[in-house]
């Protein structure tokens, strides 16, 4: 990058910027690819795929914070939140390997073990239920790990797709302007004037339960939010000189949009989407708690809490208390990390 370039090209390892530029897209492809394969139900090398997913996520996170780690980790809250988020994501990704029992494999369950308090063992003493069991003898700890995976994946997928739709609509509106922009933004305003829980509730009432359906409902609820944010950023970016310069060079619109405008509109979204994932987890768990969310065969944390709720008043607190603590832990750590990210990455706050 410097004017006095060395005669021989410097080895890649000496330039940290370049290594990151290569690692970032690779990690992105790894994450999206493994997610897609895992949800496509590909059975080959599932464990290896999960390892790829985890490594990709870690690299992406490191790339995001590259050069700003000191600012990010100011104070104990940031360390704790990052650590607990990492642990929870690992637990969710490797739920099948870590959990002592597959709570949805009927052969591993015994109705004799139903509603046991934390710390009790199975009928034959072969396994200890550290967090107790539910009414059908399922280990609460295993249920939490599986539920964590469902809560996280539903919310992350919904947020990613909603973000994609929002970016397309927002940039299109800002670029097209005029009547198209007015119509699109009226639709966005219209949708955002109603609280998301109400809209999602109605959609789920119409669709019925199901993992795919709740993802669709969560996308519909969120896209408008991103569209509005992206349009705002895109509008202020299009007024800047570099876009004028690109136009002056006679570059085609698609090239200006994809190579110049888009890379400058996405960074503000990273922070928003982090916090949105947390909001989406809460929304999904609320819907599941109300009985219109995920199906009974694939319970998220919200549904686990709802299942145990009936036993709460009779003192059998563990069935909904521990899933609730897990839900609180994941949402709070995402929110705390998001809060730190905002302070770290937002250029407006740098004094």
């Amino acid at each position: 990058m410097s004017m006095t370039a060395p005669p021989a090209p410097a080895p890649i390892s000496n330039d940290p910027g370049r290594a990151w530029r290569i690692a970032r897209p690779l990690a992105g492809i790894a994450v999206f690819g493994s997610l897609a394969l895992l949800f496509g139900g590909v059975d080959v090398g599932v464990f290896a795929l999960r390892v790829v997913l985890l490594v990709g996520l870690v690299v992406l996170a490191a790339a995001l914070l590259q050069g700003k780690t000191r600012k990010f980790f100011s104070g104990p809250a940031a360390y704790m939140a990052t650590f607990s988020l990492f642990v929870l994501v690992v637990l969710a990704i490797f739920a099948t390997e870590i959990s002592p029992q597959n709570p949805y494999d009927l052969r591993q369950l015994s109705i004799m073990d139903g509603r046991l308090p934390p710390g009790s063992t199975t009928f034959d003493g072969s396994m200890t239920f550290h967090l107790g069991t539910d009414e059908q003898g399922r280990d609460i700890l295993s249920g939490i790990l599986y539920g964590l995976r469902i809560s996280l994946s539903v919310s992350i997928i919904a947020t990613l797709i909603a973000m994609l739709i929002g970016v397309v609509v927002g940039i299109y509106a800002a670029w097209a302007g005029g009547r198209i922009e007015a119509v699109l933004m009226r639709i966005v305003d219209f949708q955002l004037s109603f609280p998301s829980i109400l809209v999602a509730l109605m959609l789920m009432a119409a669709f019925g339960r199901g993992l795919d359906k709740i993802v669709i409902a969560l996308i519909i609820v969120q896209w408008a939010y991103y569209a509005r944010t992206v349009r705002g950023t895109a509008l202020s970016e299009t007024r800047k000189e570099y876009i004028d310069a690109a136009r002056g060079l006679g570059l085609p619109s698609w090239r200006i949009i994809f190579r110049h405008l888009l890379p400058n509109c996405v960074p503000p979204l990273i922070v928003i989407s982090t916090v949105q994932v947390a909001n989406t987890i809460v929304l999904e768990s609320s819907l599941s708690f109300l009985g219109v969310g995920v199906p009974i065969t694939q319970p998220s944390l919200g549904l686990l809490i709802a299942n145990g709720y009936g036993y709460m008043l009779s003192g059998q607190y563990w069935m909904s208390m521990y899933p609730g603590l897990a839900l609180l832990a994941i949402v709070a750590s995402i929110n705390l990390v998001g809060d730190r990210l905002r302070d770290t990455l937002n250029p407006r706050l740098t004094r």
Partner: protein
Amino acid sequence: MLVFLLRRLAQSVFVLIAMMIVVFFGVYMIGNPIDILISPDATPAEIAETMTRFGFDEPAYMQFLKFVGNALQGDLGRSFVHGESAVTLILSYMPATLELAALGLFFSVAIGVPLGVYAGYKADRWQGRAIMTGSIFGFSLPNFWVGMLLILIFAVELRWLPSTGRGETVEVLGMRLSIFSENGLKYMILPALTLALYKASLVTRLARAGTQEALMQDYVKFARAKGVSETRILLVHVLKNIMIPIITVLGLELGSMIAFAVVTETVFAWPGMGKLLIDSILTLDRPVIVAYLMMTVIIFIFINFTVDVIYTLLDPRVRVKGEAS
């Protein structure tokens, strides 16, 4: 001003019409209401008879026109389950939700403003940071789980407050309210606190930001130079100036409070509109779902309209901008 009001009113009517279309086709066109109206072993003749009686055999647009015609006369159909007019049913459940939301708003201000002002005053100290981190937990705690915890602590363990249901009600202005009787109020405290928690963290953050900004203003410096005590500066000078944005936001949030009451009411078995909605969704009682949505839309449009008008009255800049465009 009149032009602005008329334009705003026209917008509201447009939103209402759009919402009617969305709600009607969303709720009525998906699935088959016949399945829940009639027993599965009914003869084809019986099914056809019921279809005609409810008008399901007509084309969609005719059904919609009929729905709009009836809606304009204040008739949104009859509940399949309760057999009553859906509007009357919702109206009879509405006071319970409204008083819960009102008490929730009160709690969120009573908790959020003092915490926020204090956090703003001690912004760079550990107290301020602790309150801000705490407010993140307020955002993060799922509504229903907070409710369960409160029940577990205050109703099951300590036995201070009743766990679920609604207490005594008193008839005030033709509505049955429980906020005015001691017993009724006891039943309201836990659900209202649950509802308030999220808003309280929002208010805390708003109040903190406002306080930080106000403390840098000249009038605070002047008051300090005059020798006014710090307490008085916070309670009089700062508080007066931060309350306007907080009240505006809370006004707008009243609508979402009513929407979130769905979850809280389910946890506490509180007989309000939200509980009615969930029960209706679970029993597929379509007229009640539609009526609930239409009433909520009207409440929302009314709140947004009022806030806009008050804004315009208070801030001439908005008005000028609105008329210029």
